[in-house]
């Protein structure tokens, strides 16, 4: 059975040469680590990468794809070393990659791991058509008209409330004096129910707009609501429901204004808008806290994985204590998230209501996030194991440097033979020294400087030991480079304490470049 992750990548492992086939437009077939642009054979992947970096720096895409292919190839080779795994044998690996993007289905997997066949695999979101401009063009003039009308009503309401007498007759006179009432004789039918007025169906006036209606069509606005509309009180939002369902018969007519349907609708809409602006139920506050916690911890989880990877690689950028501190932080946040979501779940809502469904959904989302993203992080590595890996890595590096030095030596000798006599030997030297500065991060180490770099590793510990003392007295060093190194070290310490591991990584990078430079200078000075 095919390993869904292993196989396509494994194929890639063999494509060092087939890649060249694909780009080679001529009929003749060249093999080896060819530069896709100038078609020189560079022999090793490292050299090819550096070559492209230097000679074709404008072709950023190409460089990227080149690096990807080599890393694919490496993975492929490493995988082949292990025994074939089933699709579920490596759950950590599987969850380590973003779900939707990689290897979900055979077609997607094949198309994504096969950039040769399908150069444009990243699918962009399709067409869209935005109608908001037209929507606003229709809506906004209408809203403005409503708004001015509502404002007029509110001003009148304010006048009506101001010094309103309590006795019915006085109230009516007061109301009539503030708002001009329509002449009832002109209206024969009730405008809303179209029934004719008479002795049994008397005319009534809306107190805010002054229009006429029958008793059956009258609605009432209580003083309390009216006051709330006129002077919105942000501290205590009106908790009552939209009243047009349940306000037909108020307790007493003295405590409310008779209004028509149209005015009440406008006023209530305004009230509701005011309410929703100030209304912040506990669930929203809790939810915001939840999201803040989550946003805080989100970048830390991939960082933790990166630290672990780097530890297992045998790098010295991060320490085991970093990983454990970060792990502890993630654990604490998980606990906090759990607690907040439990509080959400405990909020009292009516059974079967949508709010109850909402709180359950929030809790569910939180639990599955904690389970799948936070608790599933791999355990801390054992310290001895890491030390072993680091030792092995150091030995390997030393061995590789030795080998590469030999190779470079050979190549250099060949080159000298070829160039015998008339060639300019310094040109090679220049080339190599310039590459050494750019290649300090790349795996390619220039053979000529390799012994010096190896020596640097050995002496570095001594040096940093003495500098620990010197750091307390920074004026004692004359070399600005050493000052710089000490400053960077201080920064690293601070960043580590603040658990900003992203910065630790870049600073460590700087530090290694600085020390490299320092030793280069020392060496030059001693020569």
């Amino acid at each position, binding site marked *: 059975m095919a390993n869904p992750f292993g196989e396509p990548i494994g194929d890639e492992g063999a494509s060092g040469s087939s890649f060249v086939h694909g780009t080679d437009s001529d009929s003749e077939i060249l093999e080896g680590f060819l530069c896709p642009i100038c078609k020189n054979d560079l022999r090793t992947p490292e050299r090819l990468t550096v070559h492209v970096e230097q000679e074709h720096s404008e072709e950023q895409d190409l460089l990227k794809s080149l690096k990807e292919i080599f890393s694919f190839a490496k993975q492929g080779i490493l995988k082949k070393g292990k025994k074939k795994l089933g699709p*579920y044998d490596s*759950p950590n690996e599987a969850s380590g990659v973003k779900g*939707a993007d990689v290897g979900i*289905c*055979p077609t997607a997997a094949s198309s994504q791991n096969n950039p040769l066949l399908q150069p444009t695999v990243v*699918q962009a979101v399709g067409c869209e058509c935005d109608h908001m401009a037209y*929507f606003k063009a229709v809506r906004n003039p209408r809203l403005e008209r409503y708004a001015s009308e509502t404002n007029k009503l509110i001003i009148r309401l304010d006048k009506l409330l101001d010094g309103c007498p309590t006795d019915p007759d006085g109230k009516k006179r007061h109301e009539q004096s503030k708002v001009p009432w329509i002449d009832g004789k002109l209206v024969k039918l009730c405008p809303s129910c179209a029934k004719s007025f008479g002795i049994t169906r008397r005319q009534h006036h809306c107190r805010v707009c002054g229009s006429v209606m029958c008793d059956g069509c009258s609605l009432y606005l209580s003083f309390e609501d009216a006051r709330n509309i006129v002077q919105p009180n942000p501290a205590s939002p009106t908790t009552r429901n939209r009243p047009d369902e349940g306000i037909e018969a108020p307790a007493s007519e003295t405590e409310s204004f008779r209004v028509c349907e149209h005015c009440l609708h406008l006023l209530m809409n305004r009230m509701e808008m005011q309410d929703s602006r100030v209304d912040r139920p506990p669930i929203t506050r809790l939810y915001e806290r939840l999201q803040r916690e989550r946003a805080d911890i989100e970048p830390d989880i991939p960082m933790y994985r990166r630290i672990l990877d780097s530890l297992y690689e045998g790098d010295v950028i991060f320490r085991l204590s970093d990983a454990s501190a970060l792990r502890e932080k993630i654990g604490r946040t998980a606990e906090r998230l759990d607690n907040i979501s439990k509080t959400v779940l405990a909020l009292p809502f009516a059974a079967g209501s949508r709010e109850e469904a909402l709180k359950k959904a*929030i809790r569910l989302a939180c639990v599955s996030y904690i389970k799948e993203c936070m608790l*599933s992080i791999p355990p801390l590595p054992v310290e001895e194991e890491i030390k072993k890996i680091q030792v092995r890595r150091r030995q390997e590096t030393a061995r590789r440097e030795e080998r590469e030095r030999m190779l470079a030596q050979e190549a250099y000798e060949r080159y000298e033979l070829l160039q015998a006599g008339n060639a300019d030997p310094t040109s090679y030297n220049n080339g190599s020294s310039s590459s050494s500065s750019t290649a300090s991060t790349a795996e390619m180490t220039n053979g000529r400087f390799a012994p010096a770099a190896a020596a640097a590793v050995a002496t570095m510990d001594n040096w940093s030991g003495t500098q620990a003392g010197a750091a307390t007295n920074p004026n004692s060093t004359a070399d600005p480079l050493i000052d710089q190194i000490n400053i960077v070290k201080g920064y690293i310490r601070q960043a580590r304490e603040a658990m900003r591991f992203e910065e630790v990584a870049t600073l460590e990078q700087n530090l290694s470049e600085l020390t490299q430079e320092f030793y280069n200078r020392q060496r030059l000075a001693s020569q």
Partner: protein
Amino acid sequence: MNVIRAIQLYIDKMITDAGPGMKMLMMDRETISIVSMAFAQSEMLQKEVFLFERIDSARSNERLKYLKCIVFIRPTRDNVLRLQRELRSPKYGSYYINFSNIIPRTDIKALAESDESESVREVKEIYADYLPVNPNLFSLHIPTCLQALNWNPEALERSTQGLVSILLSFKFRPAIRYRAGSNVAQTLAKKVHETINKETALFSFRPPEDGAAPPLLLILDRRDDPITPLLNQWTYQAMVHELLTINKQRVDLSGVSGVPKDLKEVVLSTEQDEFYANNLYANFGEIATTIKVLMDEFQKKAHDQRKIESIADMKNFVETYPQFRKMSGTVTKHLVLISELSVQVGRQQLFEVSELEQEIACRADHSTQLQRVKKLVAEGKLGAANALRLVLLYAMRYERHANCDTSGLLKLLLDRGGRSYIVPRMLEYISTVARQELFNTVKITDAVKLTRNLIKELKGVENVYAQHECVLKGTLEEVIKGRPLDAQYPIMGNEVPFRRPPAEVIVFIVGGATYEEALAVHRYNQEGCRIVLGGTTIHNSGSFIEEVLAATAGVPFKHSRSLQQFHQAPPGTA
């Protein structure tokens, strides 16, 4: 070109456009299936979408002003009216409205006039108006699209919309070709062409660089290949659909005995189920071994999990628990499915039936095949559906044969209570092209095939159950190789046809696609082609027969007059 991805991107965009905060999603009957085929509910929860509501369900009066409401509906008249009502007394704080297709301007005006409390923040069209089934397969979920062998107007409308939407979601302005001689294919091609010309603003994509051929939209007709949906299938997805029926990624197992309660209905999604995604096209033999491996692995893991002795073990268990649970769910689900499949294979004698089906479909050998069909139908060990299928295949294959004995077979079928009236209807359904060409081409290649089979047998990799090749495969071959298509697949409109083969192809089969055809498309895609297949629906033999019956209802019998005694359906049936 991945249809699932296209829909996912749209939905993702729709949700992120609404900004952070608690959200609810309001959908209609169709869009809810579109969303659910692209994402699991748990994934939606992680996108802060906590509540789901149908716009056409009863409204509760509960107001949740602190929620953002994302509306994703089809632009139908009813939906617009319902949305207007919602906006007049809004339950939620703000609305982000997404229509799944082109919406008339008058409808937007009506909505704008209803938005009295200024709660609408966005009105957009996104073109996610089709059901993504597999990465290379989409469906419009129209169970029957023809009436009296012509378009049902609603189905035509929906199909046009669906095709326009898939073109827009890939940003294609295609050349449209349709199967010559097919009325329905031509009508649909014309409608799509009209829409593209009308919506010039939408379809104003840059033409492909360096004069490459534009994408091709190829509209075919099921009536040209009625064989494929009738054959028994042996690849996993096709088999599950044939024997258990997949309805929008869901398989109903409530009829299967001994199924655990939580597996009465299982979801088969290439996005959420890695095992399924990897084995969609694996054949039955392979999949049985695969599931065995998976089970062994699982048992090993389960065994490891069980011996929790120290605290370290416990921690380890908790850490791997989510994956463990996920895996256990997958294993049981597929185990149940596969064991049910093998039960059905045994009970229905599918190996025998399938071999004969393939024989009839691929080789001309009238007398032997007639004998075998007769024997199987008469014996009565076979289920009615399979007997009917054999007779249908025979009737189509040997319609013009001098010694054709369809009526004899129908008598046998009728004697054992089979639905023999379907056979004449099928003969009316198949197109003239199919009648003339379907088996002719087979005859020409017969000799080649026979030798190929011989070689295969020598190599010992012969698979007699997968000899048949669908018509689509040959069609695609011609398209990809850049052969002249104008005679059989004329181009719609007055575009100058391109001689070079197109880089992308969308195939749409009026009358439904099948999973066998999806497999053919998948094989081409593996070779580097970019093809997407769609259909008015995805058929198995059962649903296809229903489609045939609906399409031929009320059609006068022209080709099957000799079978007059079988025309009438027994009372009480359709």
